[in-house]
């Protein structure tokens, strides 16, 4: 299995180094064409903000990783910033393992990041489009996507919000049944506040309201959010608490802008309907005593960060499960790959024996009477077939049923060495 992986990622290189190696779709296309010409029979390139990685299959094991690294650096003209030391390289099982780890999200900067699987999928598709894929990489792609799918369905590594704004949305979903019937109010215009509001919109919040000291900003944001929304005068924002279900405060203010008395009053007016307040302001915008009021759920940056930390720990705890899936899929993949080599080996062995038979028959055919010659041909063919029958059956059987891929590889190697039939030719990849 001559699969190589050579690449640069967040493990080995800082952002300013990684961004130098980032490849656009067009650049990727060009790079793949050249890589195929120079080094690989099949290849693909994954390029995201966290990694640029090359996966390639060679017919000849003797490929110089260093040369490929230099080629990639030169391709991006990044000689000054990117060094070969920023790259990591692995081979055969190591390369497949690495690809599976990447696709399952356990190699990501934020563990369990699901975006990466789509990016890997797109990379495969691009390679297919420009025809630098072959049967081995195709199969590898299927298995990789399968690893990703199994990871998502069989583990919880992708679950739980890992950013403060998502954590807030997740909480909203634990309090309210149907966000499309709820409304949210954003007070202030901090970046995280806006992001949280956008997440709520993407989760289908029914109505949005925005209050800002500068009315123009509020209007712009409402227009930008693209849902049923309106602007609330900043001075009237406490009154607005009567009619909304979720409040995000993100105001730069030295004192609390919402006090327990305000909320007590509001809760009576809203017949105690649950009120979820997300205080993203630093210093805090809402008096923490508000938390004690019945049916009011108040969260600040600290408590949201605590959720994020907890979720990250939970994701980490899922890694062993993912590793097990990867191992299972690797066994499956290599099993397939071994069986791929059995066919050509049997073919080559038959060829070799047939050649010997033909040579010997030709050499000695004159010693037989003309009427017996046809029989000689028949008998020798039968002998060769009988000799081949048992080893061929065993070899096929081993590859089809045995999960121990190393055993099959060993047999193939031994057979080729003993009979002197050399390495499989290109034909294997067309099987």
């Amino acid at each position: 299995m001559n699969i190589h992986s050579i690449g640069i990622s967040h493990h080995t290189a800082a952002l300013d180094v990684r961004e130098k190696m980032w490849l656009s779709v067009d650049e990727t296309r060009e790079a793949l064409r050249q890589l195929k010409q120079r080094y690989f029979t099949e290849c693909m390139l994954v390029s995201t903000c966290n990694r640029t990685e090359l996966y390639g299959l060679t017919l000849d094991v003797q490929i110089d990783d260093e040369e490929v690294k230099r080629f990639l650096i030169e391709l991006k003209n990044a000689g000054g910033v990117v060094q070969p030391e920023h790259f990591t390289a692995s081979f055969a099982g190591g390369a497949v393992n690495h690809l599976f780890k990447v696709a399952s999200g356990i190699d990501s900067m934020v563990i369990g990041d699901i975006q990466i699987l789509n990016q890997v999928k797109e990379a495969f598709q691009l390679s297919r489009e420009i025809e630098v894929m072959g049967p081995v990489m195709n199969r590898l792609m299927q298995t990789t996507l399968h690893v990703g799918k199994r990871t998502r369905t069989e583990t919880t590594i992708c679950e739980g919000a890992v950013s403060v704004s998502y954590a807030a949305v997740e909480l909203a979903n634990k309090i309210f049944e149907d966000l499309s019937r709820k409304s949210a109010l954003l007070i202030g215009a901090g970046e995280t506040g806006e992001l949280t509001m956008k997440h709520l919109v993407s989760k289908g919040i029914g109505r949005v309201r925005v209050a800002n000291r500068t009315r123009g900003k509020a209007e712009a944001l409402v227009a930008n959010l693209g849902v049923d929304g309106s602007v609330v005068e900043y001075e009237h924002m406490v009154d607005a608490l009567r009619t909304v279900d979720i409040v995000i405060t993100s105001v730069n203010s030295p004192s609390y802008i919402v006090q327990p008395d305000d909320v007590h009053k509001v809760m009576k007016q809203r017949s105690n309907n649950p009120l979820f307040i997300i205080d993203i302001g630093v210093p805090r915008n809402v008096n923490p005593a508000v938390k004690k009021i019945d049916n009011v759920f108040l969260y600040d940056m600290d408590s949201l960060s605590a959720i994020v930390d907890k979720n990250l720990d939970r994701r980490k705890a899922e890694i062993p499960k993912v590793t097990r899936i990867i191992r299972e899929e690797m066994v499956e993949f290599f099993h397939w790959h071994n069986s791929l080599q059995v066919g050509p080996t049997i073919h080559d062995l038959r060829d070799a024996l047939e050649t010997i038979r033909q040579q010997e028959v030709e050499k000695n055919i004159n010693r037989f009477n003309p009427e017996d010659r046809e029989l000689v041909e028949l008998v020798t063919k039968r002998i060769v077939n009988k000799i081949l029958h048992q080893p061929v059956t065993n070899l096929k059987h081993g590859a089809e049923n045995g999960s121990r891929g190393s055993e099959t590889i060993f047999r193939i190697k031994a057979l080729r060495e003993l009979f002197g039939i050399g390495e499989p030719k290109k034909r294997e990849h067309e099987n």
Partner: protein
Amino acid sequence: MDLVAAVEFLVVFIPVLYAGLVILYGLSFFRSIPLADRWKSPLLHVSVLFHIGYILLRTAAFDHPPVTTVFEIMTLLAASISVGYTYIELRTKASNTGFFILLLALVFQTVSSLFIKDLTEIAPILRSRLLGFHVSTALLGYTAISLSAVYGFLYLMLYHEIKSSRFGLIYTRLPNLEMLEKMSHKAELFGFWMLTIAIAVGLIWLPRAFENFSYWDPKLIGTLFIWVLYAVGLTAKRKLGWQGRKTMIISLVGFGFVFLSMTVINMYLSGFHTFY
């Protein structure tokens, strides 16, 4: 086939089934063990069938439906709770509350199995049609009240967990607060009206059926007290805008009294409502 022998086997076997169910649902909820996830619902369906079979066999073997003693009623209640839960699970596709609800069914069934007696002789008074109506409405009412209490309990646990920012299993596995409150409230409302009918029918039927009938009977006072409690709770929700925690606490307290009424009053303060 010996009917009585079959019933005697099932008396022991049904609680064992429920214990198995509670263990499976528990393993699924607390440990997310795939095997438990896979088998809990099939086992639930099998158990419900066995339980219904048990009730039918009992009726045949002792020549009366099991409605004449509190322990007979308790097995009906357990069956009714698990049938109700099966319906909820099939409809909402959410099986994460099963552990808590079936735990309740297990408690009722175990108490029933421990004390139930094989009565063949029953008072002729208990063969009235009005009694059947009284018992079935009371049963539906208590089932709904039990479910309401479990959802109320889950609401309070989740409420507490969200309020105190401790995001454990309860937080991860349970549905949202609004849904739990809605389920609890709907069940409570249904339970309340069923109970109202049961009480009304009882009050019409009692003076005719019993000579020693008294309005100061502990069971009657207890039940009326429970009814008033729920009436106050439901009115407070409607008129005073009580929401969330407070209404859930009322639902739980109400259930506490129901349980007391079924056990302590029926067993120790014997009045006309005990028949054995």
